[in-house]
């Protein structure tokens, strides 16, 4: 069979097998507690209904900046087993839902699990904690009796924390984390008991505030007409009691009974949460990251050896990954009920998706592997940005003025696509410079085609960013009567539009040629990253300082890297590997002889 077809098919099959394996949920043993079935129990957080599993993961993220926690080795009486240094022995990552249940029920090992991140050297030294520990996560037992901390918390409660005081801010941070944990231990969190039909008074079950277990129990005793759904309360109480007592059979039957009851309340509750639990476990965007890594490798290797089968495989795997990506995006939209972009995280996800599709589309035009590799790079980077932006629930509700799916799906989508296209043009520019300077791949038709494509993408970017920006103005006019207010975010979008217009006009006026277009397009990367993240930095002090500081550094590094590539691009083109004057009789160019290094343009 022909390797050009066979090998890509093989790669896609391998990827499919890998994904299937990753998709299969961790099965709880038949004779153990069915934690995975419990994980889908709906709770109310960030204004929406989410599975208990997501609640647990979000708590872990907030407490420890990581979605999972390692279990500690413990004996039958739930006492942690210590090694010879008196440290707990960490085992495998445990189910997030089990962690949350243990914490809510104050089961012994939870005090020894390391899930609270404290990340300031001075604070760690002051608390006598090990500043060299990997991940900087500590257990409650490690600092709960610390006298320094107790005194300091007293002091802050009394005088309040001082602005711009790093020490105060960090102690405040620890206090907040302690509050989060103690709220869980007091069963004030999560809000897991729905309201009774009478208390809902005709409103949807999702739209009314659910009660925490503690509030529902208290109400039970005090009120004649409780608002909590009593049946749900009893069933949840059974689950918690069975878990606390370690009664496997009772736990499993209680979970099943509650799930059956939930389905009689509103079948869409569980149908959504079950999918979300699956998606949490599968982590589709993370899997896409991995697959794009392989697309990148295949594409790069195709420029050296076995070009056609590898390039085809890169493209096929790229398309396969985009399909997975699209499904994941669709599931997000379905669960949240919002248009795709609602916050910075989802804008990064969306930019990665659009960039992958656009670049793979370009690959169909230029057909030399560059499109596939670029798709992999841009989507990978966008996903990395997204994964680093996660600091809580990513599908939370929106403030009043943004609660409009019409404008979210027109203006926000359009502007985000504008960012995306500008980035793609920028990365095409980077490709032009790097491949041009370092390799001879851009000799002849390839280089010309690359610039033509860049130019086309700039046109596309201009259209999208202009229309998106103006739609934003129209939304503003619709909601508060002001089309354009020159506010920082609007200005950021305007900068992108003008920059794209500069590229096009400079090109039409003959002020720049191929190389100029490429270099200006790289500049677009800087302008767009400023609009995307930079304007948020202007409010420094009002946002989470640590988070924003990281963003600032990344932004500066990204800008400098792009400037460096522009500087490289300013080397006279005679010196570029691709544009060196060809000597008529080159002694030996084995790859060229096979016609594999410089893929020729094929007629469509």
């Amino acid at each position, binding site marked *: 069979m022909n390797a050009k077809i066979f090998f890509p098919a093989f790669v896609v099959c391998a990827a499919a097998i890998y994904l299937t394996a990753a998709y299969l949920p961790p099965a709880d043993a038949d004779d153990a507690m069915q934690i995975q079935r419990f994980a889908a129990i709906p709770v*109310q*957080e*960030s*204004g929406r209904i989410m599975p208990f599993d997501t609640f647990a993961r979000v708590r872990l993220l907030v407490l420890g900046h990581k979605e999972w926690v390692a279990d500690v080795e413990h004996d039958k009486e739930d006492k942690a087993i210590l090694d010879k240094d008196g440290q707990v022995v960490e085992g495998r990552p445990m189910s997030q839902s089990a962690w949350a249940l243990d914490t809510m029920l104050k089961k012994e090992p939870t005090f020894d699990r390391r899930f609270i991140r404290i990340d300031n050297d001075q604070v760690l030294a002051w608390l006598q904690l090990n500043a060299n520990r990997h991940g900087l996560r500590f257990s409650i037992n490690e600092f709960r009796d610390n006298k320094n901390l107790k005194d300091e918390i007293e002091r802050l409660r009394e005088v309040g924390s001082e602005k711009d005081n790093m020490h105060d801010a960090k102690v405040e941070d620890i206090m907040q984390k302690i509050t989060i944990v103690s709220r869980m231990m007091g069963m004030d969190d999560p809000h897991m008991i729905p309201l009774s039909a009478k208390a809902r008074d005709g409103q949807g079950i*999702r739209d*009314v505030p*659910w009660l925490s277990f503690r509030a529902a129990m208290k109400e039970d005793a005090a009120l004649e007409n409780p608002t909590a759904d009593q049946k749900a309360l009893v069933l949840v109480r059974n689950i918690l009691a069975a878990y606390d007592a370690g009664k496997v059979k009772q736990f499993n039957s209680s979970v099943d009974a509650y799930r059956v009851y939930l389905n009689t309340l509103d079948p869409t509750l569980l149908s959504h949460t079950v999918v979300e639990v699956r998606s949490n476990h599968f982590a589709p965007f993370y899997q896409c990251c991995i697959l794009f890594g392989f697309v990148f490798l295949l594409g790069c290797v195709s420029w050296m050896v076995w070009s056609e089968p590898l390039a085809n495989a890169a493209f096929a795997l790229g398309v396969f990954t985009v399909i997975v990506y699209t499904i994941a995006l669709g599931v997000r939209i379905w669960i949240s009920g919002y248009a795709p972009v609602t916050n910075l995280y989802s804008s990064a996800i969306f930019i990665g998706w659009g960039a992958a599709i656009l670049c793979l589309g370009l690959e169909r035009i230029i057909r030399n592997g560059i499109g596939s590799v670029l798709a992999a790079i841009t989507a990978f980077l966008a996903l990395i940005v997204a994964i680093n932006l996660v600091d809580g629930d990513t599908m939370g*509700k929106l*403030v*009043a*003025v943004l609660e*409009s799916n019409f404008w979210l799906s027109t203006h926000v989508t359009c502007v985000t696509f504008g960012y995306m296209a500008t980035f793609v043009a920028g990365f095409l520019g980077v490709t032009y410079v790097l491949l041009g300077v370092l390799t001879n791949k851009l000799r*002849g*038709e390839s280089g*010309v085609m690359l*610039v033509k494509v860049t130019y*086309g993408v700039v*046109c*596309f970017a201009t*259209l999208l960013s*202009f*229309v998106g920006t*103006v*739609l934003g103005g*129209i939304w503003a006019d*619709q*909601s508060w*009567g*002001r*089309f*354009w*207010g*020159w*506010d*920082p975010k609007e*200005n950021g979008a*305007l*900068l992108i539009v*003008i*920059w794209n217009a*500069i590229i096009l*006009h*400079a090109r*039409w*006026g*003959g002020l720049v*040629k*191929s*190389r100029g*277009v490429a270099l200006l397009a790289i500049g677009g990367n800087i302008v767009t990253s400023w609009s995307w993240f930079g*304007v948020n930095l*202007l*409010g420094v002090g*009002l946002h989470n300082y640590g988070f924003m500081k990281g963003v600032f550094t990344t932004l500066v590094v990204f800008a400098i890297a792009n400037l460096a590539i522009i500087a490289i691009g300013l080397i006279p*083109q005679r010196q570029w590997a*691709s*544009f060196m*004057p*060809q000597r008529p009789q080159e002694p030996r160019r084995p790859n060229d002889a096979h016609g594999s290094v410089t893929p020729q343009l094929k007629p*469509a």
Partner: protein
Amino acid sequence: MEPTTMEPQPALSPTAIQVMAPGPVPPTPNRAAARKPQPLPMRILHLVSSLRVTVVLFLMSMVIVFFGTLAQKEMSNIDVVSKYFRSAYVLIPFRVLSFFTLDPKAAANSWVLPFPGGWTLGTLLLINLLTAHALRFKMSWKKSGVVILHFGILLMMLGEVITGHYAHEGMLVMSQGETVNYLQRSGELELAITDVTDPDRKEDDIVAVYDSALARGGKISDKELPFDLNVVKFLRNSELRRWKEGDPPPLADTGRGKDISAIEKPAVQGTNTEKQTDVSTIVVELKDKATGKSLGTRVSSMWLDPEKLEYQGKTYEISLRNRREYRPFFMRLNKAEEKKQPNMEMAKDYSSWVQLIVPQRKEDREVHIYMNTPLRYGGETFFQANMSQNPDTGVYTTGLQVVRNPGWILPYLSCILVALGMLIHFGIHLVGFVTRRVA
């Protein structure tokens, strides 16, 4: 004669030219034209209409937009708009150019960079665009997209000019059950002296002194008043507190001002996300009109209720407040509702049910105004802007943003035209590209 040729030019490299253009490269018509000796005015016109100038103006626009964004770190959005964007020129402080890293005491704090403002750049771009179309563009199908989209841009600029000169904004604030027939101009002040002698009066007799006069200070005289005013102190943004021993002397020597001292605060910045506004305070000295004798100094502040004073058998109320504009209709807040996201502090929707009463037209009806759904009435649009609830009484106060903008339709038209223009223009290019590829 099309210097704005759409075909991407071949790469600079000799190799690329070999591949792309086997024949001699035809000289672009623009250069050919430039070689012929031309009269000076034409040469200037060609320069003015050139794409080189367009690109330079675009770059300068980016500079002004960028620094106009940064400047909002320490200046209010309204001030930045009038200084940077709706101005002929702007003196950009070195502090802004240096990303605010200057020491507050450094000498460089007084340095400025003069730069053309928004109006100037806009006008120059407009001249560039119009001359380009007059001189260089020949009507053809191929150019139709560009013409349409440039016309759209023209409309957008026109819209911004109309907004800048004619748009009018205010807030209509009312508590539940309250009837109101005026707007408040946010960011503009008036010192109002109202004759309240007759408790059964139908209409108020008001003398109002506006913002600019207050900031200028000095003597203010009006024939309706038996006394003159002299502005002693004007604080744009302030905080008040009860005077106690050891504080600087109290603000005024008469009335309640005797017990109050004030702290001046910096004006609210444009990037402020807490929706704060300036709260001003003023100290005025009253003088008898006939004798010029001082009647003492009094304080009036947006933090305080109006103060009453008796003079020559009449009672006056004196208050510093947002400038009011009266309307021939009344609005009464019947009901207000604030919906929260379940189990969160975050608002989901604000709703106001307002009775609209127009005596001359015998109109009296209830209207429902909520997020993203404004009321349009009498050439003005009323948007739900904010809402607050008194924690003690539970009474809601709603704020409606009132806007009159005769140019509001232009951005809509412009958006359609520019999008259409780009689609046509890029579409023609794309079709050409694909056709060549197939061929």
